[in-house]
């Protein structure tokens, strides 16, 4: 395995991969739905950082045009991932709101947001 290739010159990608796995672990292993939601938010953070890492150029400035730098694209970091992630962050806030609303509804209907207890209650409801 040529892991050295990844870790020299591509270290930020490895960091986003670790963050992504932490988020996935939260979504898979935790039983509390709220903790699963936290995991999903960490996952989203990893994706956002992954895009931002792509935008970086060594020695480049922020993508606000400066007379001293002219319009040479290599002097500014890539604006596209920044714009995309800017909207993605706001959309992720709104979708987190929807997820929390769903959790409130689940808690109102079943009195719990623990996955195991929830499945038990669903089974009880079906057998009735």
């Amino acid at each position, binding site marked *: 395995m040529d892991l050295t290739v*990844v870790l020299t*010159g591509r270290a930020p990608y490895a960091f986003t991969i*670790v963050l992504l796995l932490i988020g996935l672990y939260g979504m898979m292993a935790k039983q509390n739905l709220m903790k699963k939601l936290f995991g999903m938010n960490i996952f989203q953070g990893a994706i956002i950082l992954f895009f931002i890492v792509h*935008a970086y150029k060594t020695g480049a400035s922020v993508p606000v045009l400066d007379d001293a730098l002219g319009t040479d694209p290599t002097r500014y970091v890539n604006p*596209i991932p920044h714009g995309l992630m800017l*909207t993605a962050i*706001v959309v992720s806030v709104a979708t987190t709101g929807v997820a929390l609303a769903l959790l*409130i509804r689940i808690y109102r209907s079943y009195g719990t947001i623990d996955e195991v207890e929830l499945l038990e209650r669903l089974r009880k409801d079906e057998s009735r």
Partner: protein
Amino acid sequence: MKALTLLVLAALGLVMLAAGAGLPLYGDASSPASLHVADDYVRGSMKDAHTPNVVTTMIADYRGFDTLGETMVVFSAGLACMLLLRGGERRPVPAIGRPRNNIVTDIVTRAMIPVIQLFALYVVFHGHYSPGGGFQGGALIATSILLARMVLGFERSQYLFPQRLGTPLGLLGIAFYAGVGLVALPFGGNLLDYSYLPLGLPPHMLRNWGILFVEIGVALAVTGTLISIFDDLTTGGQTGER
């Protein structure tokens, strides 16, 4: 079960690391993502729309249709919260700690709110020339109201922004955004093509103004939606008549 999860995730991590070897080097100026349109945006931003901030030009002008859709996603998330929580049977929700009236936090909050809102307006209207724009400014305005909701409590912060106005404000923002885009249609342009707005200015200045209108629309939509989501979540969808 936990051990199995860890094993699967470790394997997935190795696969992703191996695939990572094919990604462009960190900081590579000629990576595929930075070729093609990104260069055109940087070169054209000043010429086309007279806006130094390329991110703003990209969001509000070059990809304005995308942003319109994304603003609608945010707004429909607010609507989804409303439909999920306000409908159905009314059951008392567990009280979310009502703040005690504390004179220190009250005064500090009241002093901070106008400062936050002033900065938010700066972020919205200075988005052409510095990092900023509708999304960030809208989130900041919403933050100032949410601060009041959290510190002063739900009832005592109604005078700042009544709960019933959240969703209409979001709708107004989207209508403003789409409306400015529609104005370009009868004057011969495509939807959201601001160089056809009837303001009597050269095309690149018209697009500059178009970007400002878009930012205002987005800011209104984001403000209204975020406040309405927060109100729905904290009150459990109970409307004013408590």
